[in-house]
């Protein structure tokens, strides 16, 4: 038994060794897989740690802040550029963000989720506009945080950039909470329109409580060239037919600009991310408030009467 525990602890150590994770990465499958592995192993680890604790009588401190907060609330992590950082400014910014979150429910969402945003618009009829679309991109930190929704309306692709903390936003609904295979879905602009067409009257689909966020592994079919970007250079996983439109020269140039060594560049990774210790500090500051809001959201969810979801899009 002793050997097996050691083995387990070793493996756990190896998993934990990869501390820094890119702030905006929503590479869903890997995380999901990792989570699954963790959840599988958790009871076992707990047992083992309990046994070791009873032997050594060391109190084990359970990490309070969930590990997935950096994916649910990426905008709470500041820009990692060192020249722009200042602890007081970051603190004030977080306070303002929480103030805003007390006024409006900003739910968990990811790139690939289908959302509806109701916002106050002076030029719209009735001064209110509601836009349904798929979130194709999410970026920037702090009060600048924003996301892009895309939909095809009357055969015309429409994209709207929303700022998450803009006070003109009245309501943010997540109609279908899911992730896609890529970090940003700009290639939907060059895909066939049916892949970014969503019904305006779509109803919200409810996920089971505690269930992991599903990953939609749909492969998108691209239109023939010309494209807006050189998609063949971006190592996309959610595109089905990219090879169909490539010539040899495209493949060669794509190979030429690849930088496979960059994933081993620890300094680059360090500069592009917030270290885990700092992340913990930041989330410890805002955890109580965010957690309370989450609980409130759950309560509200239960109050809602169950309606069988309709598959529309």
């Amino acid at each position, binding site marked *: 038994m002793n050997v097996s525990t050691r083995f387990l602890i070793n493996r756990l150590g190896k998993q934990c060794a990869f501390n820094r994770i890119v702030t905006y990465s929503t590479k869903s499958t890997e995380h999901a897989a990792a989570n699954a592995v963790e959840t599988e192993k958790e009871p076992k680890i707990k047992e083992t740690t309990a046994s070791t604790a009873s032997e050594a009588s060391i109190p084990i401190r359970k990490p309070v802040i969930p590990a997935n907060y950096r994916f649910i609330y990426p905008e709470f992590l500041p820009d990692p550029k060192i020249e722009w950082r200042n602890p007081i*400014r970051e603190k*004030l910014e977080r306070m303002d963000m929480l103030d805003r979150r007390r006024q409006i429910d900003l739910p968990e969402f990811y790139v690939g989720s289908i959302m509806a945003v109701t916002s106050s618009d002076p030029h719209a009829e009735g001064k209110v506009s509601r836009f349904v679309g798929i979130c194709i991109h999410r970026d920037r930190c702090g009060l600048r945080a924003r996301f892009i929704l895309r939909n095809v309306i009357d055969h015309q692709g429409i994209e709207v950039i929303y700022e998450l903390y803009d006070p003109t936003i009245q309501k943010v609904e997540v109609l279908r909470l899911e992730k896609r295979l890529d970090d940003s879905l700009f290639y939907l602009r060059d895909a066939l329109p049916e892949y970014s067409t969503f019904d305006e009257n779509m109803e919200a689909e409810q996920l089971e409580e505690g269930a992991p966020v599903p990953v939609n592994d749909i492969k998108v079919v691209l239109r023939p060239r010309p494209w807006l970007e050189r998609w063949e250079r971006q190592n996309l996983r959610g595109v089905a037919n990219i090879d169909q439109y490539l010539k040899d020269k495209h493949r060669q140039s794509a190979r030429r600009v690849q930088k496979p060594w960059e994933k081993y560049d620890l300094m680059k990774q360090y500069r592009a991310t917030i270290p885990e210790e700092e992340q913990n500090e930041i989330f410890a500051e805002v955890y109580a408030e965010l957690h309370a809001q989450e609980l409130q959201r759950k309560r509200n969810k239960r109050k809602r009467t169950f309606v069988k979801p309709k598959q529309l899009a």
Partner: protein
Amino acid sequence: MLGGVVFKLRDLGLMKLTGSMVIHVRGKGHLNRPRIRNPHWFLRKKLSNIGELTTSDNKVFINQLVRENYNEADVSNNLKVYEQNLMKTEASISSPSIVISQNRRCGTIARKIGEYPLWLNNGEKIRTTLLQIIDNHIISYIPPEKYSPAHYPNVKNVNKFGCLLVGAGTINPTWLTKEYCGIFHESRVMPKKMLARFLVSPEAALHPGTALNVAHYRVGEFVDVRGKTIDYGFQGVVKRFGFKGMPASHGVTKTHRRVGNIGGGGEKGRVWPGTKMPGRMGSRWRINKGLQVLRTYLKYNVMWVQGSAVPGPTGGIVYLYDTILPHRKKKISSIASLSYENIDKVTDDIWSEKLHRFKDIRMTHKNE
């Protein structure tokens, strides 16, 4: 040499003997040679060897001594009532409630700590810069009659203004020279990292030791911000002045980002002064005038100022003045408005009325 000898003779009282002597003066250069008269606070600041020769016991002793000496004065956020610290100068006694649109108040030293957006009540997004007033104290006051700098600043009626010396950012006094620490003797505050002088009207003079914080500025007022711009080093003409450069192809060789022509021929056949050419970019003192104070937060001594063009990098030091722009200046304000009541902890976050607070309910555009 000869002059020196003469002076020595005069000193000895032997001038009589040299009465008939002729002193040759070769040129008048020595008469109008500029005399360097630095302000009295321009002193060597840091010790050359900081504690290299002190033992650990001595270090403990020194630190203890420092703590004893500067115990009460080392309070960065002390909220003294501003009015009490106004100096009783002759001017203020003779005219206690004159309109002070002509008066100059003290400025402050601040640090640019970043920028982020705020929203107006009409839904418009604006960019704001956060300025933190770092531990400002009045160090000394020089009245107008005694203030005679070597180089007068380019200010109207400069002889009417006194000079307030303001320090910011506390530093460990054991690192500093004795004479630099002596500057702070009068005000009894901890020695400061940065010093700045501000011209003030005698009515607005403050007692040494007064702390200045963000309550010095009211929300809605306008300030001028002076700072040193970001240093970009030696840059070409495309980056420095936004020249277009030349095409990348079509037969262009070796002159894609170059200046091109710098002048004509004939009578004007020379490089005219002021021609834009490559050179050092940035690192110049610039004043951004007339920025509105939109929000102040007393607890952290931070103010939000409209715009994102405050000179200098994040973390850089800037100097704040009441604006000199005639239309944005405070029109009618008496000396009494210089005083600031103690502000409660509850209301230490003050917003401009035109801003939408994040605590307010979400904003809607109403039907008209």
